[in-house]
């Protein structure tokens, strides 16, 4: 299994500012993913964080709004830029297990934009 540490666990931010969320995994993993869970909603994939190259974004998500870094096989960051109240969500980091048989999730970052 993989243990994922995500920081911060929660934050309240002013609109127009940016927040960077960190995701640390206790083992090297090939694929890391970032999801968003809007209030009362399901999880939606934002992007796949690729080590050594740009992230792959899903439809509706763009790099200028959600820049992602992946400097090595155990760490990634997601930045939520120029925040508005609509960005208030839980953001979750996820990795796929070594045998690609399971996805592991961090505890999430609960973001409130005021």
């Amino acid at each position, binding site marked *: 299994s993989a243990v994922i540490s995500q920081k911060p666990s929660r934050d309240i931010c002013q609109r127009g500012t940016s927040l960077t969320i960190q995701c640390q995994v206790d083992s090297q993993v090939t694929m890391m993913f970032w999801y968003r869970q809007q209030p009362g909603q399901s999880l939606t994939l934002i992007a796949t964080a690729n080590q050594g190259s740009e992230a792959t974004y899903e439809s509706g998500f763009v790099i200028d709004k959600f820049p992602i870094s992946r400097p090595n096989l155990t760490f990634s960051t997601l930045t939520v830029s120029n925040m508005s109240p609509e960005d208030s969500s839980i953001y979750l980091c996820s990795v796929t297990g070594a045998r690609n048989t399971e996805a592991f999730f961090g505890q*999430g970052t609960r973001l409130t934009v005021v």
Partner: protein
Amino acid sequence: AQSVTQPDIHITVSEGASLELRCNYSYGATPYLFWYVQSPGQGLQLLLKYFSGDTLVQGIKGFEAEFKRSQSSFNLRKPSVHWSDAAEYFCASYTGRRALTFGSGTRLQVQP
């Protein structure tokens, strides 16, 4: 495109009663299917998964799920629900890039 559907947004059952949460998938090949549970303020916990083989899968906390290809379904069941089972339940499947596609979720409420 691959999709997962959970028809029931909210289900209420009495403690000790049986439970079945519905999940339907849309995918050409044999899907990889999962059930996750999310308790209030908590992260996602994997209950069980199906890749191949026996279509009846046992999971943690007394849950099981049955894969039915003919019905494109992967319903979650529990014979006797406990108050601590109250949570949000998500059905999910792998996309080709090993990211998960989630259903919309079913909120389970347990009455005493």
